[in-house]
């Protein structure tokens, strides 16, 4: 009797399992289809007729769409017999990261090509790395690239990500507002140190009653770029937590003093990339912001009333000899190991992001500064921009970048994501919003928490 019951149970289970197996079967069939297709493509190549395009699935940042589409055009021009077709999918940055993490953990469902935000890059650099090494497309061209951007996305000499832009920081000044205080453009040009910057800021703030600059309280700008400019970071090259060393604390204390003096204010909405801030800035409430190159397109798109009033200048420094610009943020593009057409995907990434034409496309479509320095002197890039008082970003910034530009020190370290998230969620909030902790206290607490993570 018992045996019968057991067999009955087994049969019922078998039934249930076979149902699921059937649904899984569909997937198998699809894969077989693909496999059947590939010999076809080989044949058609011989008789030089365009084959069915290879479909590459890309999860990308929506703002970067044009870069990929233009890259696909370039690729298809170069390979008319073996074209590709992109299937672009867009997700918000955090959601894309979370989905990718699950897809890579479970081994199915990841796209061929994916954008990863720098904040979460370190998650993918642990254990068995699920991205494809890209050395063969990176190394031949590295001599005319901003190399620190590639180092950022490498581990043990292997490159896993292709940067989208340099993200060079500069200081954006609203000359209309500054002019109201009687400060001339020559005076702004003469700014070299933070002391000079604040001196003029005092003048402008007193005369206009408007904010001289704004801090992010839900994100890490301008603190992180300031650290990088001094060669500092949250985690040093050896993986030690340096969030609470003297220099780091001194910079946050300096920011806090400027804030207390009323020269800096909390950015409305908590960061510089939200609608509340755009409106506020557009109304001429803020005289200067320290932001990367990729802020140009946001100014132009979301703050149209500032057209013709803004200028860009290199960032002031604490001591002479420090770099006048640093790389901020970043979105490397990687190829996952679930990609079936790795060679094609690599070639496509080369055309989209590294080739001269692709790099010019990056500027023309997104107004990002490409990592390929060959094109920085191209007429299309140095063309004067009406929005920025008829000046060109590349003319102004090239002297400060061609000799090398620092990037964050160790964002591939396992602790880096936690450190960045603590800065965003806790430190900035505790220091500038609730002011419940001194800069030193907030940084020490955060550093201890990061240290407590076991490797």
């Amino acid at each position, binding site marked *: 009797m018992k045996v*019968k019951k057991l067999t009955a149970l087994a049969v*019922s289970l078998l039934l*249930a399992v076979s149902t699921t197996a059937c649904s899984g079967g569909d997937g198998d069939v699809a894969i077989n289809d693909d496999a059947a297709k590939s010999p076809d493509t080989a044949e058609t190549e011989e008789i030089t007729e365009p084959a069915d395009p290879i479909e590459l699935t890309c999860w990308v940042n929506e703002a970067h769409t044009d870069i990929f589409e233009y890259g696909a055009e370039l690729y298809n021009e170069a390979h008319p017999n073996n074209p590709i077709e992109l299937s672009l999918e867009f997700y918000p940055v955090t959601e894309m990261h979370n989905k990718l993490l699950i897809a890579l953990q479970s081994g199915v469902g990841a796209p061929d090509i994916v954008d990863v935000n720098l904040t979460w890059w370190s998650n993918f650099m642990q254990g*068995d790395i699920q991205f494809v090494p890209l050395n063969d497309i990176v190394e031949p061209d590295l001599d005319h690239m901003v190399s620190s951007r590639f180092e950022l996305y490498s581990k043990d000499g292997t490159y896993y990500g292709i940067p989208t832009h340099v993200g060079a920081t500069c200081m954006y000044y609203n000359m209309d507002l500054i002019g109201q205080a009687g400060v001339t453009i020559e005076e702004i040009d003469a700014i070299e140190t933070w002391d000079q910057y604040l001196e003029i800021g005092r003048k402008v703030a007193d005369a206009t009653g408007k904010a001289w600059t704004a801090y992010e309280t839900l994100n890490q700008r301008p603190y992180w770029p300031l650290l990088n400019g001094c060669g500092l970071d949250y985690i040093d090259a050896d993986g030690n937590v340096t969030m609470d060393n003297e220099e780091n604390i001194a910079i946050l204390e300096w920011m806090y003093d400027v804030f207390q003096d009323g020269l800096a204010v909390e950015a*409305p909405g908590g960061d510089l990339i939200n609608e509340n801030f755009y409106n506020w800035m557009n109304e001429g409430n803020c005289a200067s912001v320290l932001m990367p190159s990729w802020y140009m397109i946001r100014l132009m798109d979301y703050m149209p009333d500032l057209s013709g009033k803004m200028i860009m200048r290199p960032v002031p420094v604490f001591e002479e000899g420090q770099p006048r610009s640093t790389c901020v943020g970043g979105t490397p593009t990687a190829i996952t190991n679930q990609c079936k057409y790795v060679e094609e995907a690599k070639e496509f990434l080369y055309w989209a992001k590294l080739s001269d034409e692709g790099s010019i496309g990056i500027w023309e479509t997104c107004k990002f500064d490409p990592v390929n320095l060959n094109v920085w002197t191209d007429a299309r890039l140095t063309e004067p921009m009406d929005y920025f008082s008829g000046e060109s970003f590349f003319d102004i910034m090239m002297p400060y970048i061609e000799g090398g530009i620092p990037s964050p020190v160790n964002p591939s370290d*396992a602790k880096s994501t936690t450190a960045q998230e603590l800065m965003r969620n806790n430190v900035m909030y505790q220091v500038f*919003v609730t002011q419940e902790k001194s800069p030193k206290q907030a940084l020490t607490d955060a550093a201890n928490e990061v240290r407590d993570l076991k490797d």
Partner: protein
Amino acid sequence: MQAKQVRTSWNPKRILYSRKMAPYLFVAPFVASFLIFFLYPSIETIRMSFMSMEGFGKERFVGFYHYERLFNYHFGHAILTNTVYTACVLVIMMTVPIVLAVVVNSRLLKLRNMFRSAFFIPSLVSALIAGIAFRLMFSDMDSGLFNQILHLFGRESIAWNMGYSTGILMMVTLDAWKSIGINMVYCLSALQSIPEDIYESAEIDGASALRKFWFITVPMLKPTLIYIFTLTVIAGYRMFTESYVYWVDSTPGDIGLTIVRYLYQMSFQRNDMGFGSAIGIVLLGIIMMINLVQLRGFGMFGKEKD
């Protein structure tokens, strides 16, 4: 004999019509989905909570390390947030739906059906979608709805999503708007099952409307109220969406950091699946304990013994 038996047992009609087989056949889909989607993941979660996942494809046994890690500021803060939130929602859910149900059940009210559906419709809306509207209403700009209301009272605009108490208020408001309707329906159906003659005899005894409500309606609704209470506590401690819609990427000062949010942050944003699993197990324990205490308090276990 043997051969015959084999043949008959493979006759599909025999299997389908067999009294012994049929029950197993009917429960098979449930058993299978229970095993695959519940039991296996549960066991795996317990196992993972003792493991440290190192990147992809590598794991190491770490014993109770993840449980020790739970004694930190963030997790304590998350439990506090959940508790405050649940308490606020409970106060609303134990009062407003009953009152609304009594009102829309009253014969004196015109357009009763319209009101019933109007209160119920928000329950059909996804919290994520409603959240978009609420995020705009709670905008820190002068044009935000709730800031406009403040202006009516001569107050300045405030940044709702940057303060702890206003943050809790935002989440409670969204949940109240969404859940009052469904709880009202529960109360309404319970109300309609209360026999009319009890009220009649109370009226003969000269009971006022308020006394009738307090001494007849409320006690008769007790099972429904316990049901609402239990579900609200569970939902309160499992809350995630209400926080996620307001603070998508990061929660400033951990305002919107609830237990599940912390689990999500650790597992999926920091790839710390082992720690995330430990949080999940502890959350299960917390909810189970609260519900046991509460059901015992309501005498739900006593009855069975009697």
